[in-house]
């Protein structure tokens, strides 16, 4: 069984490359949402500081 075959369709119904792409969307989303959350927190802290 060759696990390195790029065209093999895994039980998820995806090939390795496809699965990596789906995963990349997840990672990108996490990054974008993380940055947005950070920025939103900074702005909130400027208007109504909650520490000190």
């Amino acid at each position: 069984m060759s696990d390195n075959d790029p065209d093999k369709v895994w039980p998820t119904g995806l090939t390795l490359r496809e699965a990596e792409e789906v995963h990349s969307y997840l990672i990108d989303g996490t990054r974008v949402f993380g940055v947005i959350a950070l920025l939103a927190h900074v702005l909130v802290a400027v208007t109504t500081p909650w520490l000190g």
Partner: protein
Amino acid sequence: MMFDYRAFAYNQISRIAPRYLPFADVATEDVPLSRLLRLSLFQVTVGLALVLLAGTLNRVMIVELQVPASLVAGMIALPLVVAPFRALIGFKSDTFSSALGWRRTPFIWKGTMWQFGGFAIMPFALLVLSGYGDAVDAPRWLGLGSAALAFLLVGAGMHMVQTVGLALATDLVKDEDQPKVVGLMYVMLLFGMVAAAFIFGVLLENYSPGRLIQVIQGCAVVTIVLNAIAMWKQEPRDRERAAQILERRTVPRFSDHWKQFIRYDGAFRLLVIIGLGTFSYGMADVLLEPYGGEVLRMSVADTTKLTAVLAGGTLLGFGIASFTLGRGLAPVRLIRSGALIGVPGFLAIIFAAHIGDVLLFVGGTCAIGLGAGLFGHGTLTETMRRAPKEHVGLALGAWGAVQATAAGIGVALGGLLRDIVVHVPTVTAMAPEMPYITVFTLEGLVLAFVLVITLRLKNVQRLDMKTEQSIMPLGFDSPSRRNFEAIR
């Protein structure tokens, strides 16, 4: 005997997994109306964003947050800056390199995230900008920068979602169903705008900073939920396309493809028509209400009803367009009627001032709405019909770029004129209708000009029907590409 966990897990995963992945199962020939209805939800979020940016926040920033009007105007104009890039976005989606063979869904998702992100930071950015609470001491650039970023994100996300969403709709439906889909998309946009305007109005009646945060962030959540529902399992996976993209030797360049696109018979002419027509109707949109109020002395309640008449006319236009196009009428003829109805409409509005007849004015307004509906539907259907399979995104991007820019400039100029009329009383003391009539005359003339150009717009069927070889995907040495090189 040992239980084979591995086999069991594989078995379970393989049975469950595809249900939880956002692909369409197969590329079916017939996409049912219910699925298209679901897809058209993205238009609701676009309408929502449009109303929030141009209408609701415009007022809230000036009245409640006391941000200078010129700054507000600048912020609201920011999304317009992104509009011309719609052609590029469409092109990028046409040539997107994906192992899944996807072209549209990643862009709709990305656009949705931007829209969400913009909405998520927008209320706090606006509060910082207006110097609320401790933000009085905040540096000026922080408020300005974050507010500008929020508006840009929402604008860019909105343009991206709409461009690529329309391209996906074009991919999915058969040619004869396109009028139906275009009608659906327009009606959903209108529905989103009307519903949003109404709901924001109710929610923000008792304004407080907390309420502002709730409303805008609620918008963000609604946007991401509706768009996720809209794009779920719409675009089929395509391993063949993915494999072809992997073999691609050259990176497709926008300028090449744009030159190729604009060379298609009538492509440039159609874009000019779309631009001028949309400009005319967009400008009329903002001027009808103050015209009715100042020149014809209609009450505020009556001028608000005027907006309903205009929207009703537009809806009627969409209905007529969907019906007649579905029965085989050429979209070009519909574009002509759309421009044609506008000319007497503007004439009626102009003469209504002379004889002081409100009914004539309302009739003219209805005609303008009807013309705008027919024109909008006709041009989008024609764009979809002409778009060659490999340039669907680019064609719809070009449509959107021209349409959004023209409408934005029209609305901005209309608003500018309205402000001049309001703030320079000496000009208008003697004849308050003069500036309006000048503009309405101009709009009528532009529409007449559009009509003349459309006479030379030929009925073109989808191009790749004639030249089968051009269906080849982009970026290879396909025959169509070689032909194109030869032409150059």
